[in-house]
């Protein structure tokens, strides 16, 4: 069914393939930039991935102005301001984020600070508050999960006011996303599994949540297919560049989908589990996905059922039967990934304590994703899911 009204955008040039990283200086040049600030984290730098990035500048007319490799897993306004200061002090003219969601979001926010000439991000919270053209920005993901390389959203923590700040603007899209399998080869099996489940959650929730539309649906289905076809191979043989590239593309498609269709209760609770119990986002999504789908059976069962052929679920019986088969297919996948990588399948295994449930539920109902969930997200509903997923 076509929605009464929808909007869709994705303004990111996608450069994907073996040795795609070699095109970084060329893409910078096209954007009129020649001196990059690399934003990354210690894990990425420690894995030797920044050396790979440095190597592609040899013989080009572009250079690295500075490298910021201190991005924490949950970045903050303090870090963003440090990055923005480094950008200005080192006279850089473009941002290159190399990493997962945190590095990419940090670079997006630092770009806001530099462009708007402010260190007060509070006043840009919300949607479409950025009016000035931003500095060139290239994202090179090193995980296949967050999709942040193709979204217009950034989330960081405000150290001063102790708030999670969310920004949405078409100006936050990176100009270019470079997917090179070399950048994901070093991901350990458990992180490969968790980030792939993160991407699968983006695609599945994006497909059944309220802002779905025909264009985002197409991306979601494409994403699901590539993720399911390649995630287990990537875990079994992390050096399989073709599987890694396909999985990265699956995560990218899922990212384009959810950036437009948004996500629902799985993300609401996962964000809250991250904030309260420090559960990594991909892991929380992985655990909660079947429970979130189950929560929406009454309101969106027929839509979930449409995913049966793509999730490898039975297409027999009523739409409710097929929707339930989809949930079972996700549970079967969880079990296989647990056997292959040790990825937890319950909140207790992920370190969540029962006494944290109330705080998680309170945070979940205040999470923006709740708006897009077909079923109402209340404290009681979230508590029910937490108890089941424990």
């Amino acid at each position, binding site marked *: 069914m076509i*929605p*009464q*009204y*929808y*909007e869709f955008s994705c303004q990111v040039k996608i450069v994907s393939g073996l040795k795609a990283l070699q095109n970084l200086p060329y893409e910078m040049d096209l954007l009129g930039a020649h001196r990059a600030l690399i934003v990354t984290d210690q894990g990425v730098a420690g894995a030797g991935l920044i050396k790979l990035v440095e190597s592609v500048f040899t013989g080009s007319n572009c250079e690295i102005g500075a490298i910021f490799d201190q991005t924490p897993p949950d970045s903050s306004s303090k870090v963003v301001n440090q990055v923005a200061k480094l950008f200005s002090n080192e006279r850089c003219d473009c941002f290159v984020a190399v990493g997962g969601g945190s590095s990419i979001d940090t670079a997006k926010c630092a770009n806001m600070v530099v462009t708007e000439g402010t260190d007060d991000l509070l006043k840009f*919270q*919300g*949607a*479409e*508050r950025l009016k000035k053209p931003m500095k060139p920005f290239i994202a090179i993901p090193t995980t296949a999960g967050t999709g942040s390389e193709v979204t217009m959203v950034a989330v960081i923590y405000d150290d001063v006011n102790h*708030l*999670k*700040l*969310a920004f949405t603007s078409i100006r936050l899209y990176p100009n270019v996303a470079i997917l090179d399998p070399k950048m994901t080869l070093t991901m350990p099996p458990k992180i490969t599994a968790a980030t792939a489940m993160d991407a699968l959650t983006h695609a599945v929730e994006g497909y059944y949540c*309220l*802002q779905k539309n025909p264009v985002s649906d197409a991306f979601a289905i494409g994403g699901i297919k590539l993720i399911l076809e390649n995630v287990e191979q990537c875990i079994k043989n992390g050096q399989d560049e073709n599987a890694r590239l396909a999985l990265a593309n699956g995560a990218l498609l899922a990212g384009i989908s959810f950036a437009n269709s*948004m996500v629902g209760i799985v993300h609401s609770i996962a964000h809250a589990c991250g904030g309260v119990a420090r559960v990594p986002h991909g892991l929380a999504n992985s655990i909660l996905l079947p429970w979130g789908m189950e929560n929406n059976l009454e*309101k969106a069962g027929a839509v979930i059922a449409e995913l049966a052929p793509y999730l490898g679920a039975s297409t027999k019986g009523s739409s409710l039967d097929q929707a339930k088969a989809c949930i079972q297919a996700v549970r079967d996948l969880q079990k296989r990934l647990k056997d292959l990588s040790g990825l937890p399948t319950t909140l207790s295994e992920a370190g969540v304590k029962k006494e944290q449930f109330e705080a998680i539920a309170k945070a979940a*109902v*205040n*999470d*923006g994703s*709740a*708006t*897009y969930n*077909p*079923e*109402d997200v209340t404290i009681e509903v979230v508590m029910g899911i937490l108890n089941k997923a424990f």
Partner: protein
Amino acid sequence: MTAQKSPISYQVKKTVVETSLLALAAAFEIVSRHAPEMKAELADWEDGRIFSLGVLPNGPAISLQKKGSEIHYLGKGYHNPKLKILFKNLDAAILPFTGQIGSHIAFVQRRAILHGNVGEAMQISRAMAIVQSYLMPGLVFSKIFKRPPKLTPAQLFLKARVMATIGPAIFMKIWK
């Protein structure tokens, strides 16, 4: 030749939205004074929070403030709000204000945008849903709520009170 919007239809829409905003403001005041579920929702809000609802680019707007345990109408326009809920145009605003779609659907369909903190917007959204349950006829509940509320006798009594007093309350706010 480019077609131009009829000034009359624009004025009609503007009047509908203006009146709806004033009705919402009046209902917010009454419901926050008397409805226990609204008081429970407001308990977590910091005192003095100002929020506005308005229509872009220069359409009607109102500002409301939490004072103590109640919501008070501050007047038309933007009174230095911490958070704004902005409809992209009059047509986008008319839909939720006339019960054709829920306010959450206005966000879902990107007819409305938020300037401010998402967590606080979620609180305001829940409070607006409570107000709408007293302001809107039960007939449209299935269109505007994910789970239409079933009002208790006490809530129905309060709804009758809102209905009885909303006209004069709007009238009093016209010049504020």
